[in-house]
C-alpha cells in the first residue's frame, strides 16, 4: 500500500535521508526505530508529503506522492497522522477538533460528523470530556483525542510520529492500548517509536534507521531475535536494558 | 512631472547636511538620556517600594498615552516658563525627547531585567552582594546584553520621531528639506529625497539589528 523507493533528502548541506527504501502492505504494522537524529521522523513525514524529497519515489496505493502536480491535499485527507506533540487545535473543543476535517474536507453533514466524533471519542473513553478544550486535558488524553481525530477521516492508513515520547510515563500505556487495538482491527500503520514492547506485540516488521539510512528492514521476530547489524544490536541493548 | 530637477538638492546640500547633523545629534543625545532615565524608571517600578513603583508606572503610562507632538508642545511651553528664560529650541526639544522616550525605554528595560532568571539574583544574594551591587554587576549587564537589538530598534524609531520637531520649526533634516522645498518650489524632489535619506539610514540600521540578532543566536 505504501512504497518508499530510494528516497534521499537534504536540508542545505545536511543529508537527512540517504537512499531509503521500505514498503508497508495493506493491514501491516511497521515500526520504524533508531537513535535520535537518524531521520525516522523525516521519513514518515515524507509519506504524506509534509516533507518534500529530492530523489526517489513514494507511492501510496495508486497515488504518486513524489510526482509534480500530485494533489497532496486529497492524499492527506486519506492518511491519518498522529504527532509527537499532539497538535490538537487549541481554540476548538474536542468535538470541534474531530468534526472540522469531516465537515470541511469530506463534506459530511454536522449530524454525521457529530455521530462519528462521539462514537470514536467513546471508544477511547473520553466521552465525558468531549466539550472540553485540549488545554484542559492531560497529555495522554490529548493524544487519544488526536488519534480519534485522525480516525474520524476514515483513513486507509495511519502514520504515528513518536506518539508517546512527549508523554509522562504513566500515560504511555493508555495511548499504546488504543494503538494496539487499532492494529488488531487490521489498520495499516507506520509507527515511529522507541516503545519496543509495542513493536514486539503488534509489529509485523521493524525498520531500523541510523544516520539517514535504512540499516535493517526485517520481520519483528528476526529483528529482535537476531539483529544483523552491530548498530541495531547496540541500539537494542541500550534500549532494552533500561 | 517629468522635469525632475536634481540640482536643487545639490545646491542646498550644505544646508541639508546641517539639518541632518542636528537630527543625528538629537537622536544620539535623546537615546543616551532616554536610556539613563528609562533605567531609573524601570528600577523604580521593580523596586518593590510601592510609592516609587506607582509614581514610575503613572509617569510611564501617562507619557505613553499622549502623542509625541503634544509632548513637544508641552515642553516648548513649560521649559522656558519653569526656568524663567528661553533656552533655545534644541534644548527644549531634547528635554521633550528624553522625557518621552524614557517612558518607552523603561518598558523595554523592565522586560529585559525580568528576563534575567531569578536564580541569578539568588546567587548574588548568596554571595552577600547588596541590592545595588546585584543590580549593577549581575542583573543589568545581562539585561542590557539581551536588550541591545531592541534598544537599537527603538533608536531607529527615535530617529524617525525627531522629524516631528518640524512642528516647532527646529531646523532638523525634515524642516531643512521642507524649507528648501518651499523656497525653491520643488516639493516632489525634496520630499522624495528626504524619504530616500531616511529610508537608507533606517533600513541600514534595521539590517544592523538583524545582524546583531543573528550573531546572538548563532
Amino acid at each position, binding site marked *: 500500500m505504501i512504497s518508499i523507493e530510494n528516497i534521499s533528502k537534504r536540508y542545505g548541506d545536511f543529508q537527512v535521508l540517504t537512499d531509503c527504501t521500505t514498503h508497508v502492505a495493506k493491514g501491516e504494522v511497521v515500526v520504524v526505530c533508531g537513535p535520535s537524529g537518524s531521520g525516522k521522523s523525516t521519513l514518515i513525514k515524507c509519506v*504524506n508529503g509534509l516533507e518534500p524529497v529530492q530523489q526517489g519515489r513514494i507511492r501510496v496505493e495508486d497515488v504518486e506522492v513524489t510526482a509534480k502536480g500530485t494533489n497532496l491535499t486529497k492524499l492527506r485527507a486519506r492518511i*491519518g497522522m498522529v504527532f509527537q506533540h499532539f497538535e490538537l487545535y487549541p*481554540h476548538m473543543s474536542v468535538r470541534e477538533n474531530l468534526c472540522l476535517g469531516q465537515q470541511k474536507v469530506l463534506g459530511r453533514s454536522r449530524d454525521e460528523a457529530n455521530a462519528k466524533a462521539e462514537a470514536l471519542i467513546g471508544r477511547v473513553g473520553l466521552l465525558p470530556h468531549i466539550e472540553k478544550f485540549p*488545554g484542559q486535558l492531560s497529555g495522554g488524553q490529548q493524544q487519544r483525542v488526536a488519534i480519534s*481525530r*485522525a480516525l474520524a477521516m476514515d483513513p486507509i492508513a495511519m502514520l504515528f510520529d513518536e506518539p508517546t515520547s512527549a508523554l509522562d510515563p504513566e500515560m504511555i500505556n493508555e495511548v499504546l492500548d488504543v494503538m494496539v487495538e487499532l492494529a488488531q482491527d487490521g489498520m495499516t500503520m507506520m509507527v515511529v517509536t522507541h516503545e519496543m514492547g509495542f513493536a514486539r506485540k503488534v509489529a509485523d516488521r521493524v525498520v531500523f534507521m541510523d544516520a539517514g539510512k535504512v540499516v535493517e528492514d526485517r520481520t519483528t521476530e528476526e529483528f529482535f531475535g537476531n539483529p544483523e547489524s552491530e548498530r541495531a544490536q547496540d541500539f537494542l541493548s541500550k534500549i532494552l536494558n533500561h | 512631472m517629468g522635469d525632475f530637477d536634481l540640482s536643487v538638492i545639490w545646491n542646498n546640500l550644505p544646508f541639508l547636511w546641517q539639518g541632518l547633523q542636528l537630527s543625528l545629534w538629537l537622536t544620539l543625545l535623546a537615546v543616551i538620556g532616554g536610556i539613563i532615565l528609562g533605567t531609573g524608571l524601570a528600577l523604580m517600578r521593580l523596586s518593590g517600594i510601592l510609592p516609587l513603583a506607582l509614581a514610575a508606572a503613572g509617569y510611564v503610562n501617562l507619557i505613553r498615552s499622549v502623542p509625541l507632538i*503634544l509632548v513637544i508642545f508641552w515642553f516648548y511651553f513649560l521649559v522656558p516658563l519653569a526656568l524663567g528664560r528661553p533656552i533655545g529650541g534644541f534644548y527644549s526639544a531634547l528635554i521633550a525627547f528624553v522625557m518621552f522616550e524614557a517612558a518607552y525605554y523603561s518598558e523595554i528595560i523592565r522586560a529585559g531585567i525580568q528576563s534575567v532568571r531569578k536564580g541569578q539574583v539568588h546567587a548574588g544574594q548568596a554571595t552577600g552582594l547588596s541590592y545595588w551591587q546585584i543590580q549593577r554587576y549581575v542583573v543589568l549587564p545581562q539585561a542590557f546584553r539581551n536588550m541591545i537589538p531592541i534598544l537599537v530598534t527603538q533608536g*531607529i524609531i527615535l530617529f524617525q520621531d525627531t522629524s516631528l520637531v518640524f512642528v516647532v520649526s527646529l531646523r532638523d533634516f525634515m524642516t531643512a528639506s521642507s524649507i528648501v522645498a518651499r523656497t525653491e518650489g520643488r516639493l516632489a524632489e525634496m520630499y522624495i529625497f528626504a*524619504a530616500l535619506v*531616511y529610508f537608507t539610514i533606517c533600513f541600514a540600521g534595521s539590517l544592523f539589528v538583524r545582524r546583531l540578532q543573528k550573531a546572538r543566536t548563532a
Partner: protein
Amino acid sequence: MNYNWNWGVLFEEEYLGWLMSGVGWTFAVALAAWVLALAIGVLIGVGRTLPSRPVATLCTAYVELFRNVPLLVQLFLWYFVMPEIVPDDLGRWMKRDMPNPEYVTAVTGLGLYTASRVAEQVRAGINAVGPGLTSAAYANGFSTAQTYRYVLLPISFRLIVPPMTSEFLTIFKNSSLALTIGLLELTAQSQQIAEYTFQGFEAFTAATVIYVVIALGATVIAQILEKYTRIPGFVGKG
C-alpha cells in the same frame, strides 16, 4: 514661575467647541485609518508567511518601505508630491476637486503606514502558532486556504490582541501628525487655544486628559476582548 491660571477658558463656548471638534477629527482619522490598516495589514502579514516566494518578498518589501520612512515624510509625500507625479488629470482632480483632501490624505497615509505595523504583528502571531499545528492541519487534509481559515488565523488573532491594542492606541496618537497638513484635530486645537488665550497649561492639560481617557477606554475594551476570546487551557508558544 509667573502664570495666571484660568481653567475657565476651557469652558468658554468658543474654545470648548474647538476642543470637541478636535476630538471629533481625531476619532474620524484614527478609526478610518484603523479600518484601512487592519484590512491591508492582515493581507500583508498573511502574505509574508505564505509558501509562495514572490508574494512573501513583495509583502516584506511593503513592510520595510513603510516602516523605514518617518510618518511625517509619508504624509507629505501623499499630500504634496502624489498630485504632482500622477497623470495630470488625476493630479488636477486631487488638487482641486477631491473632497476634504486633508482628511483623505491623513487617513490614507496613516492607514498604509499602520498597515505595515499591523502586518508585523499578524506575521508574528502566525509564526507563534508554530509549525506543528500547520503540519497537523495539512495532514488532516486541509488546503492552504483552509489551514489559514480554520487554524492559523483564529489562533493567531487571539494571540495578537494585546499588541494590536497598543497599535490601536498608537494610531490615535499618530493621528496628531495630521495637523502638519492642516487638519485641526485634538492636538492642533489645543495648540491653537494656547496661542489665542496664552493659557497653554490649561489647553495642553485638556488635550492630555482626553488622550489619557481614550487610552484607558481602549485598554479596558481590550481586556474584555482578551477575556472573551481566551482559549481555555491554552498558553501561547510566544
